[in-house]
């Protein structure tokens, strides 16, 4: 299967060169499986012809502000999986996104598989300097990845800015992720655009009432190099891979609606047989 996709990619490359498209058309280099960021789930990786391209900009967005937990957890898990490339992770937070997105916690990062000491958090004063910071970081070659977190669809972050960021990421071969909290779909230069929504978690094998591995619905809304699609995936933290988790998990309530009695005597047992009482009158 992998062999076939490689051939397909080679063919596409040949076709695009025949058509005389310029180099910025994000044609994947066929012999560069190493520069792909993978999910570890064949279904997804094959769909993406081996994974996400490394030296490119990818956008991850969520519809609602409260989905930012899901979107950033997915991104962190994805980066933890692809963190073989040593180097620091620069996480730039637009001040507008900081107000209700809270603060990343090192314990949470650890449990998703990222070393907190590899993360450099940048909190610029305003969006303009945030964009400058993103551009400057994208120029640097030695980083593991860059995450630029913005809120909504700011006007300043237009097509030409995203094009500039994309070109710089391409030149330095650094993966660049635009994390958009509560934003609409917007045209940008990103190679792929993903939407992340939380799904009910998988069954926890050890503890039935408990919360299992996190599940998300990934919607590939835009893909410059192939088709779009959507998949429910769950994160297997022990193996550091994503798994396709299509099985419908019904959100049954594991909590009893009424509290059981605690630390007090049980109900009195019924004593003997209840006889019909005589009529009172």
């Amino acid at each position: 299967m992998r062999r076939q996709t490689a051939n397909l990619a080679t063919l596409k490359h040949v076709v695009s060169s025949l058509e005389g498209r310029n180099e910025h058309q994000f044609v994947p280099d066929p012999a560069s499986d190493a520069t792909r960021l993978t999910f570890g789930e064949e279904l997804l990786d094959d769909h993406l012809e081996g994974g996400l391209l490394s030296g490119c900009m990818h956008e991850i967005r969520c519809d609602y502000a409260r989905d930012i937990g899901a979107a950033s957890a997915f991104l962190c898990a994805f980066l933890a999986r692809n963190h073989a490339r040593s180097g620091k992770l620069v996480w730039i937070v637009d001040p507008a996104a900081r107000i209700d997105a809270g603060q990343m916690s090192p314990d949470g990062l650890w449990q998703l598989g990222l070393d907190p000491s590899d993360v450099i958090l940048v909190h610029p004063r305003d969006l303009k300097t945030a964009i400058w910071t993103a551009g400057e970081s994208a120029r640097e070659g030695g980083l593991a990845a860059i995450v630029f977190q913005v809120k909504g669809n700011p006007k300043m972050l237009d097509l030409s800015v995203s094009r500039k960021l994309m070109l710089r990421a391409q030149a330095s071969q650094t993966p660049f992720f635009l994390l958009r909290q509560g934003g609409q779909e917007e045209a940008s230069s990103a190679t792929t655009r993903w939407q992340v929504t939380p799904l009910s978690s998988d069954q926890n094998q050890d503890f039935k009432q408990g919360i299992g591995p996190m599940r998300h619905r990934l919607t590939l809304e835009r893909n410059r190099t192939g088709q779009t699609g959507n998949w429910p995936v769950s994160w297997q933290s022990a193996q550091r891979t994503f798994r396709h988790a299509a099985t419908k998990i019904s959100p049954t309530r594991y909590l009893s609606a009424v509290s059981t009695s605690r630390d007090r005597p049980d109900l009195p047992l019924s004593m003997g047989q209840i006889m019909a009482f005589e009529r009172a009158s």
Partner: protein
Amino acid sequence: MKELPETPPLVIFDTIQNALRITAHEKSERLSGIYVGQSLSDARAINPHIECIEHDYSADNALLHSIARWCERYTPLVSMSGEDGLFLDITGCAHLFKGEAAMLEDIEKRLVGQGLDVKLACADTPGAAWALCRYGQTRIAKPSGHVPLIEPLPLQGLRLGKDEVQALNKLGFKTIGCLYNIPRAPLAARFGSLVLSRLDQALGDIDEVLSPLRPVSELVSEKRFADPIVDEEDIKRTIFLLCENAVPNLERRGLGMQACELILFRANGEIETIVTEASTPLRNASRMAALFDERLAALHDDWEAGFGFDILRLSILRAAPFHEDQQKLIVKEQAGTAEETSHLIDRLSARLGKDRVQVFAHCDTHIPERRFALQSALDAEEAKSFPTLNTHQQSVITRPLILFSNPERVDAIAEVPEGPPLKFLWRKVSYDVVRAEGPERIACEWWKDGRTAYTRDYFRIEDREGYRLWLFRHGLYERETQAPNWYVHGMFG
């Protein structure tokens, strides 16, 4: 003070011993009959047109400080002397200005040009210079020639208190010279050690230590221009040359730059200071200059060259031993990326401010919001990693990725006494809990919060739509509170 035309004559007054008295006035023909120490009402009677302004000591002090900063163009060692004077230690600096006389002339010309009234004197000791400046006729005392010069000056020239001067005057000591040849012991017994130590300081028998306003830098390199420079390109070029000039000196001492300061002296007397820091000791001129470029670019909007700058001075405030990277040849690539990253951190910190580029620092506590702090990436120690979690903790997610620094209060329906919440309203959205894990009990830190602080019972919950959140109940039922509040503290993925 100079006379200002077309405005009423200016006098400054202050409340001295419950009376408004004049403390300063402009030098003008229009103010004849008015003198310092006169009461304000007398002055008004003589000249009803005067404009009176109350003495502002803090403004005086601020002005003196700014003059002191400006004086750093002559020597790095400038210190304050009382409320109205400055000491400049010009040892080894005078020849740069073609000698002491030319230097004093230059200082006088520039300060008078700025509208200030100055008196200058130069001598072997600060005490002698102080006396000469205020009471003497000669401006420059030749080397070791200050003793006869201060001999005829009044005793006030010794920086003594009013009472001591009066007492000495009563005894017939009118000039400094009177004290030269009298027995010292009775003088010390009568007036304390101050009189003698001031005398010795003025004569140079004991050293007087001047404490400079600003710490002395490791290295200073500066460039002076006959014509002030205005163009940004020129400034950048000069900064690069200054950095290049400092590098060989750093090399000789085996040091690398950690923090340095660029002082730009404007032609009109103002001073701009830019301080930058580096995460690792630097010895590369272009990298050092790049840090200033970022700061200049950040300042660009609200900063104008104006009349231009006539001196640019680069002082290296802090330097640390520079380790030549011996590993470089073997693992060249890794060393290269680490260096590039530290350079990126330096540049971002220079442009955005060092508190905006941060890394996590671990704190040893169980309270979730106190478990970590954000620390400037520049100050962070190298290679300090977080305590790793054990494998069990890694496979089960128990801590949220996103933590709210201020837990958010929610309205919740929960099992009593210690059950998880069943329903709650957070940010105006209702959450219907279907799964919950908990409670994980985290007790307060009584040594910080006091004994009455509540315990927290944390629950990981998942709602019907799949949102995974971290909630806690603040307080134990009945034992601590009757109506505990619920808070959302974090978001899982």
